[in-house]
């Protein structure tokens, strides 16, 4: 809350930018410029506010005090309870991938081709990305709704008056839990995704199970898996941060909380895909 004057200024700027001048008073070109200008001012105000929010969250995470009970609770909610969703997503993705590769390739030497491409695709990209997207839906939304409701029902103000920093008590535990849990979930997604490919290959295409496993193990390197887990770490951070950020600044009753929830899911999903592209190009271009 200590950055409130700055962010309030940002909100004020943003708020003002939404006030349109009467149309008759400005020419069409000016209106267009004004619209573009408003968009960019609003955009940069948001970016600035988000940066301050992340800085404040970082401070809370580094300095403590740590609310271990809250962190534990969030690990269960974010990590443990997401296991079924991530496992199912990954299983079906691995299976579908195997089918595509089998019929897409010319079915020549396909035992090794299918197994290696499934393993690479899942560990490097699809496991972490689909896992991240599922959590953006499941976790970002839940966080935004919960914190947004706390905001509009003055529970966050109440926290502050009870001498408790909402960044330390509410936001840090969620960000810590999501950032820690996401790599673990991604690892689960890797294993189950590869297993999905294995099941389809051995059941539908009659592959030899031993050869399939052997070529997966032979081909897959530690870097394939670790690159996916590093991505997942980043995705976990994005998921919790977008949920908390949108919830924290929600206003305007139930409708505002609904808007915050939608924004959280949309922004988290887009940022995950963008961050994935960036990290793929960084990790694999060298």
């Amino acid at each position: 809350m200590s950055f409130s004057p700055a962010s309030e200024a940002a909100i004020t700027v943003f708020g003002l930018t939404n006030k349109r001048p009467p149309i008759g008073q400005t020419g069409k070109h000016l209106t267009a410029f004004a619209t573009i200008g408003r968009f960019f001012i609003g955009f940069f105000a948001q970016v600035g506010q988000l940066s301050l929010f992340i800085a404040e969250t970082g401070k809370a995470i580094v300095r403590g005090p740590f609310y271990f009970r809250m962190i534990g609770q969030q690990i269960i909610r974010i990590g443990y309870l997401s296991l079924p969703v991530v496992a199912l997503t990954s299983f079906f993705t691995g299976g579908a991938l195997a089918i595509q590769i089998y019929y897409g390739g010319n079915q020549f030497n396909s035992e090794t081709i299918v197994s290696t491409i499934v393993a690479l695709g899942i560990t490097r990209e699809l496991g972490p990305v689909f896992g991240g997207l599922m959590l953006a839906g499941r976790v970002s939304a839940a966080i935004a709704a919960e914190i947004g409701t706390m905001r509009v029902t003055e529970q966050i103000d109440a926290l502050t008056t009870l001498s408790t920093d909402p960044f330390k008590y509410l936001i840090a535990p969620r960000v810590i839990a999501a950032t820690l849990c996401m790599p673990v979930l991604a690892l689960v997604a890797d294993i189950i995704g590869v297993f999905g490919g294995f099941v389809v290959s051995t059941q539908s295409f009659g592959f030899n199970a031993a050869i399939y496993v052997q070529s997966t193990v032979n081909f897959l390197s530690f870097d394939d898996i670790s690159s996916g887990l590093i991505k997942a770490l980043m995705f976990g951070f994005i998921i919790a941060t977008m949920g908390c950020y949108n919830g924290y600044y929600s206003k305007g009753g139930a409708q505002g909380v609904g808007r915050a929830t939608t924004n959280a899911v949309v922004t988290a999903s887009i940022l995950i895909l963008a961050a994935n592209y960036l990290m793929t190009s960084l990790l694999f271009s060298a």
Partner: protein
Amino acid sequence: MSEKITLSNVHKTFGTKKVLRGVNLSVDEGQSLVVIGGSGSGKSVMLKSILGLLHPEQGSIKIDGTETVGLARNQRQEIDAQMGMLFQNGALFDSLPVWRNVAFQAIQNQGFSEADARDQAVDSLALVGLGPELLDLYPASLSGGMHKRVGLARAIACKPKIIFFDEPTTGLDPIMTDVINHLIRDCVQELGATTLTITHDMTSVRAIADKTALLYKGEIIWHGNAEELAASDDPFLLQFVNGLAEGPIEVEGQQISAAGEGQ
């Protein structure tokens, strides 16, 4: 008596909307001040400014003589520690059972063990006339009156020197209103606290006010003690006290529809 809270020329604006336009107000130590005013006149904004939840862009708010405007949260911990607040809608944490709500400070900031905190919760609930059978209920299952009382118990749990009540009786039946008014009166006497209460309920004013102030259009336009309130012929005050639609006060809804920006 020394001044416990002093507001001078406090201004607060949201976007282009001027909510507080130079509030001047003071509360003496141990005194009960009641601020009355119509809905949307900025009463809650004024309280939140004193609590440091909102930041006025102009003016001064002193607590025990210390300037608080412009202080960051971590610079005003000592000040915060002596204040308690009952929010307009209770603002109980709905993820926590009643006892963890009431003993929140004790658990989070004072290092109480769970057992001691629970005992403290029992004591605080007893102060507002509630029994220990409520301890493990969640706020969602409480009635409006219970909600307010648990909020009251949380606000006074740490024996604050200054307590704020934001519309403590709004939305309650007349009997519960009387109960809450008495509780506030008793708590204040028991704790020797300075209090600032917001209400638009005149029975509350008569029950708990040492002094009364009327907030209108972002300014305190009248203040005085109980005799002065009874004797006053201020037209604004009379209209409010008697609850008349006719008079000098512009009713908020009419203003909004005239401006064409109804919410």
